[in-house]
């Protein structure tokens, strides 16, 4: 490890905010009803919060999940910005797209309908790329087919049933629909890449040039013009008013949209799953709506499916950004829809999770906020190190007083353990982003006792063996080791179980403390097996110890019994 430290030029541990100074905000996400959130939505919530915090532009912000909580750590002061950015509930809405443009405010360059290769224009799409559809039954049942284009930009199609691939213009009514794919739409998660790709589409062009502005609120149009989705703050975390039009960015920052009032709220989603379409082998996402949502969804899809591109797209907006904006290929009654096109397993799962999350949006309760000034942090570090130093010295003194020569072995072993621990902390800091905190330091100090105990168990066993008078030191060292080893392993196992349980079940500082305890327990085993035992065995050959010099800790006076004392010894029966 020492070599690694040299190579990495890492000599100092990284400190957590309670020692370095900084702000820690602990959020406890709960559903609107106050229930505990599911694991998936927690993971998603972490991503949402991370996006929001990034939007604030605070350097060094770290967002991590800790049990059921989300912990945001920011070096330096920044409470107000962080708290402001994370205060709101992240919600999901379905909104009709009114206009689309490339990400930046600059007009022109990217055609809007980037994505996919299909001409979108109006009507019908031809199946391009991959998607094919497959016929299945009709309407509502979920499955429908259709694939979409591929590129990442996800052109996606939303359909309810699948039909044969006839290209049909969407326009006409809906029932049987064509599945084609037509859909070029930017957006979509994943893909960043391609926005530009195929400029083909005629449909829209410059930011707003050529776009049909009918029905667009001028204020929103103005907002749209200035919206720059390439910035860090793309509007994530903005709580959109469902009754107003909004301008929003795609989540990858490659496109921006003008969106109609919310047609369906995320809470009307009853479920979403990702899976592979059995016929096409493509990844798709199926969405189900509750009854009210189903009729709202049927209504909006019925209305917009006949609209020209891009107004036939229905955007899903989560936490202020568009996560997907598939083309609606047909009216979708029945509350079951599927989204297809250019998904990978990961992107389809992500989208399904986002939709599910939208069904049960989380509130973020600020459980605790701690802002440690740099001086307080430095004081705590100093105090922790001082306490550790004093503790170590006391243990060393006691070992030397009580065990004399053997005490040196204990001291050397403690020294080795200390060095190993320090190296582990430094390397974990540089390679695994481990931050040393006050609870860690305390855990390490407390563990000095555990490490020392292993030596004590071993030494006492040795003395027992010798006292029984049957063994020379060299034999005693080995016999005692066999017995002490088992005790040490069992006792360390108990400590390790304690550390594991605390680490996984506890919150905040307790977990850090447990981590330190577990780490030192492992180091203890290593040191005792690889250092202490061989060291003692080697010393046993040295006359100073073998002959029982007075200062060796193994002197005869100490080992012998007082004549009058008929002590009970362990009888060797059987």
């Amino acid at each position: 490890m020492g070599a690694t430290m040299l190579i990495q030029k890492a000599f100092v541990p990284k400190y957590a905010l309670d020692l370095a100074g900084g702000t820690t905000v602990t959020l406890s996400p709960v559903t609107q009803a106050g229930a505990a959130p599911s694991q998936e939505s927690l993971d998603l919530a972490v991503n949402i919060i991370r996006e929001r915090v990034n939007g604030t532009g605070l350097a060094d912000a770290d967002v991590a999940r800790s049990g059921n909580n989300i912990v945001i750590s920011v070096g330096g002061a920044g409470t107000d910005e962080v708290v402001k950015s994370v205060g709101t509930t992240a919600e999901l809405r379905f909104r009709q797209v009114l206009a689309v443009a490339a990400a930046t405010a600059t007009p022109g360059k990217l055609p809007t309908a980037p994505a996919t290769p299909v001409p979108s224009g109006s009507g019908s799409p031809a199946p391009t790329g991959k998607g094919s559809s497959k016929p299945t039954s009709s309407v509502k049942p979920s499955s429908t087919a259709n694939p979409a284009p591929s590129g990442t930009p996800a052109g996606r199609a939303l359909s309810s049933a699948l039909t044969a691939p006839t290209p049909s213009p969407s326009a006409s009514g809906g029932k049987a629909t064509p599945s084609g794919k037509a859909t070029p739409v930017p957006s979509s998660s994943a893909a960043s890449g391609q926005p530009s790709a195929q400029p083909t589409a005629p449909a829209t062009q410059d930011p707003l040039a050529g776009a049909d502005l009918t029905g667009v609120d001028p204020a929103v149009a103005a907002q749209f013009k200035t919206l720059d989705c390439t910035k860090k703050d793309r509007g994530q975390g903005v709580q959109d008013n469902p009754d107003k039009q909004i301008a929003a960015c795609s989540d990858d920052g490659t496109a921006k949209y003008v969106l109609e009032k919310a047609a369906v709220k995320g809470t009307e989603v009853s479920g979403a799953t990702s899976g592979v379409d059995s016929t096409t082998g493509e990844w798709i996402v199926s969405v189900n709506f509750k009854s009210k949502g189903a009729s709202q969804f049927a209504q909006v899809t019925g209305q917009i499916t006949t609209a020209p591109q891009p107004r036939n797209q229905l955007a899903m907006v989560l936490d202020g950004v568009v996560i997907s904006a598939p083309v609606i290929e047909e009216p979708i009654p029945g509350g079951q829809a599927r989204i297809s096109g250019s998904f990978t397993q990961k992107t389809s799962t992500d989208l399904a999770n986002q939709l599910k999350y939208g069904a049960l949006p989380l509130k973020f309760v600020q459980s605790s906020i701690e802002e440690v000034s740099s001086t307080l942090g430095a004081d705590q570090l100093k105090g922790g190190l001082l306490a550790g130093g004093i503790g170590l010295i006391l243990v060393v003194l006691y070992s030397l007083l009580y065990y004399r020569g053997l005490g040196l072995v204990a001291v050397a072993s403690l020294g080795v353990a200390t060095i190993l621990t320090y190296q582990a902390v430094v390397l974990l800091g540089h390679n695994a982003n481990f931050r040393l905190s006050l609870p860690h330091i305390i855990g390490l100090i407390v563990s000095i006792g555990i490490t020392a105990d292993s030596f004590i168990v071993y030494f006492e066993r040795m003395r027992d063996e010798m006292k029984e008078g049957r063994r020379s030191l060299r034999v005693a060292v080995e016999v005692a080791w066999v017995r002490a080893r088992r005790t040490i392993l069992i006792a360390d196992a108990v400590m390790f179980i304690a550390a594991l349980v605390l680490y996984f079940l506890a919150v905040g500082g307790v977990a850090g403390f447990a981590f330190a305890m577990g780490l030192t327990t492992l180091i203890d085993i290593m040191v005792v097996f690889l250092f202490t035992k061989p060291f003692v065995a080697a010393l046993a050959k040295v006359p100073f110890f073998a002959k029982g010099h007075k200062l060796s800790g193994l002197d005869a006076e100490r080992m012998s019994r007082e004549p009058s004392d008929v002590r009970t010894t362990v009888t060797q029966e059987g």
Partner: protein
Amino acid sequence: MSRIGVIGRRLYRGEVDIDFVGRYRLWYSLSGLLLVISLAGLLVQGLNLGVEFKGGSVFSFAKPPSSTIQDVRSTVENAGVHQVIVQEAGPRWRVTTESLPVSEVSRIQNVISQKYDIAGNQVSKQIIGATWGGEVLNKAIIGLIVFMIAIILYLTLAFEWKMALAAVVALIHDLLITAGIYAWSGFEVTPATMLGFLTILGYSLYDAVVVFDMIKEVTAKLGTTSKMTYTEAANNALNHTLIRSLNTSLVAILPVAAILFIGTTLFGAGTLKDLSLALFVGMIVGTYSSLCVATPLLVRLKEREPKYLAIAKRLATNKSGSAVKDAVPSGGKGKQPAAVTTSTSTGSSNGAVATDKRKKR
């Protein structure tokens, strides 16, 4: 040489023979009394929960030279806060208030920073939601229960269930008494204190495990023709590990005492003090319980097993009527009759042949 000197020398050489097990009535009454007092404390007094459990806001800043507690309190009160507690924490003031909204906390931070001419970012602040402490507490309790189950399983595998039970009873004993001390003394219970409580678990068990390991080793040799009852053997084992137990406890307590000292003198209120105080108290109780509670309890459980009952009965009759208990001399002189023989009777399964000779003294 004085008596203390003798004991010291004996301890040093590891020559002790104290009848821990035989005095179980003494220990049980002592522990029982402590438990009753502790439970009464918990019920009557309750624990003095820190702001981390109740919710509230805490400000901490370096003491300006001229400030006094009253001064700081009135500054914060004038800023519109009602419940203000000002504590001295080493070189800093620690101001605890009711739970304030974020904007209010920032405002107070500014007030303090202006009044005492401290840079705003040097005023540390902490806001704890009222439910947060409850969560911390719940997690700790769940952790405790899972831990106990895991330990019972592990010790049952490594030793046997009676040892697991005895160890866990000793553990609960330690926790209750430590909590009782906190209740009666009014020490503040913070998350750091809970860290301490949880660590006590580890220590208490660790100690018990080492003792039990020795008991297991010694008692494994007890055959039906044994010269020792389980009680005697266990007591013997306990004395064997006594030095180790005391040494270990001392070595464990030394660093904790160091933290306690530093925490108290340099920091006043705070993590270091809270944690080390709990550890300090808990370790002392833990050392006592692994010697005087866990082992006697284990012995009570084991002596009911037919095998050991038979040994005890046989030895009792052999001893011309003296009761089993008397075979365990109390007092430090420790002339236990059992040991000296080196009889090599093999076979624990030899049946309770009463052929073995009286042990010599």
